[in-house]
């Protein structure tokens, strides 16, 4: 399995929208390396013919009827820190 570098960690941090300072990045790289080495043990298991277990429950998906059951609720917008009228407001999206 791959060796984990600080660049890997920083790339992943970017993907996850988390900033890491130098120290954190170093610590995280060390942690990753350790955990991935531990996880390495899974590779010894032969699993080619095994189905992945994505769901514990083996029933078919429940479906709901196509009805409008929700009424507008101004309370839902109370939790936002920045609004403009009823819009959510965010810093400019720099394309």
């Amino acid at each position, binding site marked *: *399995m*791959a060796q*984990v570098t600080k660049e*890997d*960690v920083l790339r*992943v*941090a970017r*993907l*996850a*929208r*988390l*900033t*890491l300072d130098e120290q*954190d990045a170093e610590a*995280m790289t060390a*942690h*990753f390396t*350790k*955990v991935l080495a*531990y*996880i390495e*043990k*899974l*590779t010894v*298991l032969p*699993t080619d013919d*095994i*189905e*992945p*277990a*994505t*769901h*514990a*429950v083996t*029933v078919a*998906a*429940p479906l*709901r009827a196509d009805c409008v059951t929700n009424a507008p*609720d101004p*309370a*839902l917008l*109370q*939790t*936002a*820190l*920045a609004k403009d009228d009823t819009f*959510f407001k*965010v*810093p*400019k*999206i*720099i394309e």
Partner: protein
Amino acid sequence: MDLSQLTISEASQLLRRREIRARELTQSVLARIETSDPLLHTYLTVCAEEALAQAAAAEQHLQTPETASPLCGVPIAIKDVILTKGVRSTAGSRMLADFVPPYDATVIQRLKDAGAIIIGKVNCDEFAMGSSTENSAFFPSRNPWDLTRVPGGSSGGSATAVAADQSLASLGTDTGGSIRLPAAFCGVTGLKPTYGRVSRYGVVAYASSLDQVGPVTKDVRDCALLLQTIAGHDPKDSTSVNLPVPDYQATLTHGVQGLRVGVPKEYFVEGMQPEVEEAVRTGIAALTALGVAPVSISLPHTEYAVAAYYIIATAEASSNLARYDGVRYGHRAAQSDGLVAMYEQTRAEGFGSEVKRRILLGTYVLSAGYYDAYYLKAQKVRTLIRQDFLQAFQECDVIATPVAPTTAFAIGERTTDPLTMYLSDIFTIAVNLAGLPGLSVPCGFDHQGLPIGLQLIGKPFDEATLLRTAYSYEHCTTWHKRKPTL
């Protein structure tokens, strides 16, 4: 009599016979919280006013006791990842430090419908990630049996509240052992139901395919009562199963004749605290004496469970926690230069170290090029683990194991190496991966007076057998009656 020391079942009887009032019961618990919480640090939010109002309403219902649920008028503490409408719910995180949800989790609605009193929100590891409650953004909770030690996690507050009579019972959540471990460390009873037995709607998601809400109680009867109230299909949760909920109370006293208990050799390993092994084996022997036939079984893929868990759980968590971006609720970084900066700063400020570690690991294992080697592989191993259990259950009805390799460790002892902390879960994690029900009951104390737990694992949706077995065991012991002195 200090009413806070009652069990649900005892309180319910007294309430219905009008020997005590809901108000005085709630006040007694509130008083207990006031005196003990400066030592224990269990509560993040105490709902004194709301609780007293709920008590008054419960009092009304109790006028016609025949129609009142067993939970009517009973104070319950709620782990802070379970959302309570109008009451701050933090998930133990700075990210949600001031979040007041506009809706209740389904389990809360069910408690309220039964007339239970929501006495307060209790501490936990941040976003339910941890095994000691030391990852709470606010403070670590203390083990009532020894204030220098952890109560276990992530539902640490749920367990301390019950152990120290700071509520009559509580709700916790369990993703890798987070109910069973603190229950064992604190000498109380804790149950993780079968995946899909209890609704997850309104519960802050950590790992969607593993999370379950469950009761933490003073004894097994209370556990059955509380499970009865919260279990059952919820149309708002597509993973909740549409199966009838049996009457757990009715079969509690049916005894254990004819049952077989599987004892897996992989769960008695080197490095376990010898007293823990001894207490667990003694517990199994007690079951045998009651008429349960012991069967040696093997769960050969046990050693891979922690590795598989830390891939699957972190992968799901990395996605579940992406919504915490400061836009619609929760913490938002004060000054940001553009959107991406706002996201990055908000999340860097709002999340603690362990949460960041898991988000990053989860992101990594899902990222391009690694999906097959990690995530897909882990899900296949999960199938193998499940198959182990299903196979074993052909030869037995319940499986008995320790809950943890040790008793409660000291605060700060395992925080330097996260991997060591992860290994606290080795006996509980496979149960979540397999989606099975698991229960922890007190089965002894070590020489330092720290509680030890016995884990019983059941077949899917067979909580009734688990509870019946645990009840029979508990009935011939007094571990659960011991209380810590604060």
